[in-house]
């Protein structure tokens, strides 16, 4: 693993751990998993146009995040059902547009050599996500407890929700290179779910989620290199191991 890969994967893991905490507490773990599937058609279009797949994926995820945001709070439709239908369709369409090794890389991740635009995008996006959670954590906490209380405390709930969804989508885009469309949702959810079991307060949860995500990413990548296996499945396996270990605590 090159130094650029290592730095980028750690930055991505920190972002995933932080953003995942609020996803788990907001009970949107399944939506998170489904949202990552939206990236696939974007990857297909980008490959057809001979541009870096990460940018195609990021564009599609942006629309996916916008869609989840627009569906939230619409009482007349069941968001889970719509998310399930739309994102499964995205997976089907994406699978038709990509094939062979490219499809396997898109689904499960394939690190390979990173281009400079990719590294730059990854670092800037990771910093944006980390900065957002660190500076907005208090607003996110109040909104989580009660959107109505948040509103009267001067928080623009709808706007904050939209930015959170976009940061969430950006985090998925960040991890696609390492974990792929099918597994990136797991790196957002499993460390946060583990941290939720271990922590007694918010700072504890955020810190624990970051540690688990970084350990899973670095440990999984090292195992993948040592065992000559794909990176994504091993990252998720290490994260799942941490989750199982958390049951020993209480």
């Amino acid at each position: 693993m090159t130094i650029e890969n290592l730095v980028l994967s750690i930055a991505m893991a920190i972002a995933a751990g932080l953003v995942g905490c609020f996803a788990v507490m907001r009970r949107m773990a399944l939506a998170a998993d489904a949202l990552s599937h939206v990236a696939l058609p974007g990857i297909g279009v980008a490959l057809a146009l001979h541009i870096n797949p990460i940018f195609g994926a990021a564009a599609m995820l942006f629309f996916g995040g916008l869609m989840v945001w627009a569906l939230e709070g619409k009482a007349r439709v069941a968001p889970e059902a719509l998310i399930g239908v739309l994102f499964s369709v995205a997976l089907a369409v994406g699978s038709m547009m990509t094939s062979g090794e490219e499809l396997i890389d898109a689904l499960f991740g394939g690190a390979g050599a990173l281009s400079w635009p990719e590294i730059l995008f990854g670092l800037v996006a990771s910093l944006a996500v980390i900065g957002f959670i660190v500076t907005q954590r208090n607003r996110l906490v109040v909104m989580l407890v009660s959107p109505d209380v948040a509103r009267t405390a001067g928080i623009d709930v709808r706007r904050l929700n939209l930015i959170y969804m976009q940061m969430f989508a950006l985090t998925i885009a960040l991890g696609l290179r390492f974990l792929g469309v099918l597994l990136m949702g797991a790196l957002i959810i499993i460390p946060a779910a583990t941290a939720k079991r271990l922590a007694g307060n918010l700072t504890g949860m955020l810190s624990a989620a970051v540690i688990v995500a970084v350990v899973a990413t670095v440990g999984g990548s090292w195992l993948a290199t040592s065992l000559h296996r794909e990176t994504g499945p091993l990252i998720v396996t290490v994260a799942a191991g941490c989750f199982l270990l958390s049951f020993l605590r209480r």
Partner: protein
Amino acid sequence: MDKALEVDRLSVRFGKVQVLKDLSFSVAKGTSLAVIGPNGAGKTVLFQSLIGSIPSEGTIRWAPGVKIGYVPQKLDLERDVPITGDDFLRARRSLMHGSEADTPRILELVGISKEVSESSIGTLSGGQFQRLLVAFALLGNPSVLMLDEPTAGVDEPGQKQLNELIRHLQKERGFTVLFISHELSVVYEYAANVLCLGHGHTCFGPPRKILTPDLLAEIYGTRVDYHVHDH
């Protein structure tokens, strides 16, 4: 007298269901308005429309510069959410760039111990959580306090304590109070005006005029008794 809130022909509709229709009332600054009515009459919907969380028709006019402290009904939170009372109150302080100095006094006022404030909010009892929400609202130094059944889930002595506390603070700080309640004796005792929402009926006026057996029977669809405390 200056008005804290003026509402004119407020209507709220969810699809084909008309929840509120042409509701008009006003609240003078520093006074208390009680909202009463049977379940499903639209009391919480009224509060949500007043704070702008659901769309409505008509006019809602708050006094300029008003700061609202809102205490909703018990929320549906997961028990294992690792957010403590302290996390929640710290979030409030940071939003208003306030100091920590006020917090211990307010926690003591609402009757929350250090042990409770360090617990996860998902594990708090209904009454403890309600007190925490009141503390959260008070930390914002509100000019209007809106309480949606503030004593629901609170034990009997706690109810009295919480009601007394709100009255005491209202006198001390001069804020306006809007509260939803099913305790008609409390409404009689504390409210300057009562807004009643019944199925198809609305009325507004001082408690002596509104809390009559006939009017209550009309609003609730059945005879309602309540006890007025002697002083």
